């Protein structure tokens, strides 16, 4: 395995929704500049874990978290973390494409604008660059002022990725980003992750094991809130060490 700098590290992470424990003692490092996939059956805690990494779980009442999540040597549950600044660095793409009811241009410019960029020329550049990075520029360059809600589902999801790239994050969290897309759009998003992984640290939650095998460098397998196994993707899929992992990837349950 290549030696890569750790971007994110979870240590002894436990999470409770009220009295229900959803994550048990997670210890996991995610290296910079690579793709980590979280797999596991529904309700195993993989999305919950993803949402702890940029503190989106803060939005849900009665969530209690113990343990540490360290991003770039800063414990984001340390108490003095600026959540707004954290989310700018650690951005998120959601399961369902969620463009704002605005023009394509305004969707992409939303992030840069709230972070203080006002000059039209600068915004124009960011919009073009982000859309190009998300492989959407050619499809939308002639209708930047049309509503983003008029795009197809796959285009909307790439728009959401472009919107995220426009705030220049380090980490992209992707929560089943292709589960609402058709196979061709899925392929495009997958190709996109391959192009982006050199520049960004990507963590992707997926239900689709082939997808995890195709695109990720390391994979973590979760079951009932416990991380069962974590390792290089090739090894985890061809030669898992834990019987439960083998049962899952061979389709015996889940």
């Amino acid at each position, binding site marked *: 395995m290549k030696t890569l700098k750790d971007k994110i590290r979870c240590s002894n992470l436990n999470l409770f929704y009220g009295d229900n424990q959803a994550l048990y003692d997670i210890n996991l490092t995610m290296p910079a500049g690579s793709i980590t996939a979280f797999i596991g059956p529904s309700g195993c805690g993989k999305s919950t874990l993803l949402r702890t990494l*940029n503190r*989106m779980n803060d*939005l849900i*009442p009665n969530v209690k978290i113990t343990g540490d999540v360290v991003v770039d040597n800063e414990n984001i549950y340390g108490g003095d973390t600026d959540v*707004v*600044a*954290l*989310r*700018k*660095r650690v*951005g*998120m793409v*959601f399961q*369902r494409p*969620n*463009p*704002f*009811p*605005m023009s394509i241009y305004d969707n992409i410019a*939303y*992030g840069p*604008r*709230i*972070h203080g960029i006002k000059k039209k020329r600068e915004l124009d550049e960011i919009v073009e660059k982000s859309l190009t990075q998300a492989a959407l520029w050619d499809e939308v360059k002639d209708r930047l002022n*049309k*509503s*983003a*809600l*008029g*795009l197809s589902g796959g285009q909307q999801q790439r728009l*959401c990725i472009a*919107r*995220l790239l426009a*705030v220049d994050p380090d980490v992209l969290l992707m929560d089943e980003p292709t589960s609402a897309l058709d196979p061709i759009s899925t392929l495009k998003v997958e190709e996109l992750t391959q192009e982006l992984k050199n520049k960004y640290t990507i963590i992707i939650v997926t239900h689709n094991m082939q997808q995890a095998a195709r695109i990720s460098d390391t994979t973590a397998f979760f079951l009932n809130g416990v991380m069962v196994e974590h390792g290089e993707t090739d090894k985890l899929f061809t030669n898992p060490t834990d019987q439960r992992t083998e049962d899952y990837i061979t389709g015996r349950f889940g």
Partner: protein
Amino acid sequence: MNSKLSNKLATGVFWLIGFVILGILAWFLWRILSVGVPHLSWDFITGQPEDMMAGGGVGPQFFNSFYILFLSLLIAIPLGVGAGIWLSEYAKPNKFTEIVRISTEMLASVPSIVFGLFGMLVFVTTFKLGFSIIGGALTLALLNLPVLVRVTEESLRAVPPSYREASLALGSTKWQTIRKVLVPAALPGLITGVTLTAGRALGESAILIFTAGTTVSRFAPTPDLTASGETLAVHLWYVRSEALIEDAQQVAEGTAALLVIVVLLLNLLIALPSRYLQRKKAGK
């Protein structure tokens, strides 16, 4: 009865209901407008009213209607929308919030004449404002406040949670999210709410009889907030029940027609741009 037949029957019944509603509306408009419009003239709409003689106009009342409406919205919109935003976005789900919400709902169903009495006791008497434009506007604002709070809260709640998540996940603050995403997305609902409120305010009479009075200033139309401020709707009631003028019937019919036309125009004026905005956002 088989399902195809009952389906046909249901279709027929609902079409019929639709036509009945349209018919009632058309009949009503025809009645009001056909007797009223002939009395409308430039002199009537802008002229001073008469106490004794025939041929008076409703100019001051026309002005007061809009002046009081404008002032009441100026007071009620910031407070109502603010409270709605607080209830929807900031208030924690606890007892206190629940009490605020229930109180607002109860206030929304209080008969307007009770607000009128309250306004008279508080603004007219205690604050010594007298029967005045400002007294009427303040009381009208109180009447509209609960409705605006509810409309704002409900429009914001109807915004998909995914918009909130998307905005926050891009590193925006709560206030940026509210200002740049939630309020714009809720705008069509808010506009509808304000339109309904404004229409209701234009037609309101019970409250204003007690607070703005049934007379107009000698200098009317005047922006003087302490001048007494009879509106069109109050004038309609007044001439039909109290007035001594011999053409009371004609003045009432003309006033009614003018009021209906004004409310319709106001609705169109707000609804059309709002529709356009909505369609544009939806990508059509």
